[in-house]
């Protein structure tokens, strides 16, 4: 191994008495792609923040190219060549692609005036070299999430980067975009740029990472070559559970088929919206988990939103328990018992500044009040019930939701909807961005809810989750239903070939 490019040694970081990182060390060789894994709360985020200059460590040191560095701000770290690509895209949506890419480094003519011609051609050229073909004059927000993420990455690596930290870079990418991303990572590696790669997707880790560091409870529990570590062992290291236990349970926690019988509780027919949805129909029986499969932009999220009345439609109808819902009315849908857990929990779901209790009670408030006066005791009872039932890990009902881990935030959201006693639960990417352990818990919860008679619509980009969690999977492609799989046909390959098949025709 060459001399390490980045040396992190003996890092200790405490937050008001709690030790978040306990003597964590990590060496990164030039050109190495290093996986950083662990459950939420294991200290990954804290370690990344120490490396990228957001936090300064209480003990220990960071050396870059052999020289000790101390970053006061993220800007200091960037100037030294440590770039970060965050899970939430750190770009300005209202500005053009080119401006975002080159902000602060715009090509200039005399008198410090920006040369827009050169800026646009430079931006287009840079992006093209990363396989991104977009109109760089368009505002960033007009692009899909995946393309935005790629641009964030292109920005990070086009500034003289020596170490790039990627925090779940693929969480909003389509498979082909992931390929593009891995192409870029390959090139970085050739240039001797090191990558710290954080992801929950085991497939990806094994595809591109050389070394691995497993964190648990703020400590390094394993460090070494990834190829020498088999998957089951990796999962067990992350979870801190017995190997046999993991093997027995598999990676997902779905039990399999549910007893779904009787008339469908939800019938959505002919959902149509120009350019978005074309005659999409879905029916869900009580106790059934129906999966929605398809690529990013296939219309899965839009279907869920249409059912929940949160998307204006040109045509179609939604019936819950035989009652036709007024089109485009979220209030009517909620009243009829449709609950939607949105994809983007940060901007559409939780209210981070409010407490766990307030977040849970929010949607149920109309039910918990009499004559406009809310009964505190009833709220306490409901909040207590759901915190126990969903095993929400919080210091107490009054802790701010922003302080919880992603998985627990997701559970708070689920609790909020369960408190309204829904008949239909629409889950859009319920396990995205949460750690393996919490993921398994959420999956088990979905199972449990279905077996209690709830109709569940599950949207997931994780094929394994979709296959194991659903009784049936409706496959969407470009806004239309292209297939439905159930029973023995319901496999990952089946879904992929259904999508691929139509692409040929």
């Amino acid at each position: 191994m060459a001399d390490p490019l980045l040396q992190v040694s003996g890092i200790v970081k405490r937050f008001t008495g709690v030790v978040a990182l306990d003597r964590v060390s990590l060496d990164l060789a030039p050109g190495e792609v290093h996986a950083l894994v662990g459950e939420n709360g294991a200290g990954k985020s804290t370690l990344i923040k120490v490396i990228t200059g957001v936090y300064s460590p209480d003990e220990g040191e960071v050396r870059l190219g052999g020289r000790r560095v101390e970053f006061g701000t993220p800007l200091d770290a960037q100037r030294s060549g440590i770039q970060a690509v965050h899970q939430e895209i750190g770009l300005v949506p209202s500005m053009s692609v080119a401006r975002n890419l080159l902000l602060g480094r715009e090509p200039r003519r005399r008198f410090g005036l920006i040369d827009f011609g050169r800026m646009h051609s430079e931006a287009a050229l840079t992006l093209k070299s990363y396989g991104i073909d977009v109109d760089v004059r368009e505002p960033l927000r007009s692009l899909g999430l995946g393309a935005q993420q790629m641009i964030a990455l292109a920005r990070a690596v086009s500034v003289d980067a020596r170490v790039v930290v990627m925090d779940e870079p693929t969480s909003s990418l389509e498979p082909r975009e992931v390929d593009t991303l891995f192409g870029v990572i390959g090139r970085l590696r050739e240039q001797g740029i090191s990558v710290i790669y954080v992801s929950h997707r085991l497939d990806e880790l094994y595809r591109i990472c050389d070394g691995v560091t497993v964190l648990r409870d703020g400590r390094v529990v394993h460090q070494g070559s990834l190829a020498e570590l088999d998957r089951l062992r990796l999962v067990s290291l992350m979870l801190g559970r017995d190997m046999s236990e993991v093997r027995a349970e598999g990676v997902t926690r779905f039990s399999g088929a549910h007893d779904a019988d009787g008339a469908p509780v939800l019938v959505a027919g002919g959902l149509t919206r120009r350019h978005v949805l074309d005659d999409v129909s879905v029916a869900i029986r009580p106790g059934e988990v129906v999966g929605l499969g398809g690529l990013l932009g296939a219309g899965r999220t839009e279907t869920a939103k249409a059912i929940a009345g949160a998307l204006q439609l040109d045509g179609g109808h939604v019936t819950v328990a035989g009652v036709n819902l007024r089109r485009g009315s979220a209030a009517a849908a909620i009243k009829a018992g449709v609950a939607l857990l949105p994809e983007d929990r940060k901007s559409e779901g939780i209210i981070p500044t409010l407490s766990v209790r307030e977040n849970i009670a929010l949607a149920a408030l109309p039910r918990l009040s009499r004559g406009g006066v809310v009964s505190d005791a009833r709220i306490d009872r409901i909040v207590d019930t759901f915190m126990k039932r969903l095993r929400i890990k919080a210091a107490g009902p009054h802790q701010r939701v922003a302080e919880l881990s992603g998985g627990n935030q997701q559970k708070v959201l689920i609790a909020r909807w369960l408190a309204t006693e829904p008949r239909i639960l629409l889950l859009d990417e319920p396990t995205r961005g949460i750690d393996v352990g919490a993921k398994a818990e959420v999956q088990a919860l979905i199972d449990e809810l279905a077996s209690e008679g709830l109709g569940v619509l599950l949207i997931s980009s994780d094929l394994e989750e979709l296959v194991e969690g659903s009784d049936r999977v409706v496959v969407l492609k470009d806004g239309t239903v292209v297939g439905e799989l159930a029973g023995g046909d319901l496999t990952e390959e089946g879904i992929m070939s259904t999508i691929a098949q139509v692409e040929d025709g």
Partner: protein
Amino acid sequence: MTSTVTAPAEAPPGAGGRERFFGLMQRHGATAVLVLLVAVGSVSFSSFPTGDNLGNIAITSSFLATVALGMTFVIITGGIDLSVGSVFALGGVLAAYGMRWGSFAALLLPLAVCGAFGLVQGLLIARVRLAPFIVTLAGLLGARGLLLSISNEGATTYLIPHGSLLARFGQGSVLGLGYPVYLTLALFAAGAVLLQRTRFGQCVYAIGGGEDAAQLMGVPVTRTKVLVYVMSGLLAGLAGALNAARLSSGVTILGTGMELDVIAAVVIGGTLLTGGAGSVSGTIAGVLLLGVIQNLINQIGDLSSSYQQVVSGGFLAVVVVVQTYLSRVQRLR
């Protein structure tokens, strides 16, 4: 490279034309309405399209415009400056006060004090991270108080003698337009270049579009924010000084409520109150629109000039509704 990411993935083809039209409306709606109004005014009132009348609209609008230029920058960063009306009046009184040391001092004194005023506000907002609304509301009261103390509770009115350099600049004209109009145009040209063609301008947009992201991208957020408030203070002070030069005295009761006219003009000009989008040219259209509306209502004669406020207010409401609708359409597509 194994594959290519093409975008926008979800945007249907054919929506582009409508999209572009909405974008144009957002940016140039005020200009379109202005042209329409001037055309209607010219046909309806023979006294409207005269050189005298138009020159009059230009000179009365030029002071509001200068203040609005600074406000445009502030609002694009997502901030607000409520102090400009008071600072405008303060600038006028300081200019008249400074005349005892000559015309140059009379111009420099308000610039120095108002610029410093903006600096303090900017530091409180950007460094101490107080809310712009509160800081500049305090500034509004503070500047007014400072002005009153200089003028002995408004009892003393300082004069700018006729014939002094400053008064000649404020009152003189060439080609039917007062000198301050040309200065305002020059300032707007410089402002447009600064906003559109420099890194500073890019930073202004980036901060308004997403302050946290801008910070992560290495934008000097604090410095940029301080500078826009300094600019706003300087421009308000300058406008006040020139207005005083035109009136030959520092009038203490001026500028009350002016900040609201300024904000109205900027927003009518297509700058989003939420920050991140807007233009200097839109602001000039917004200012002129307010000026023309007032002038036309005066032309109608038997209509009370109080209605000018009603019309301007109604217009502002319409603009904000349209803006909100347009940005919602853009986001939803």
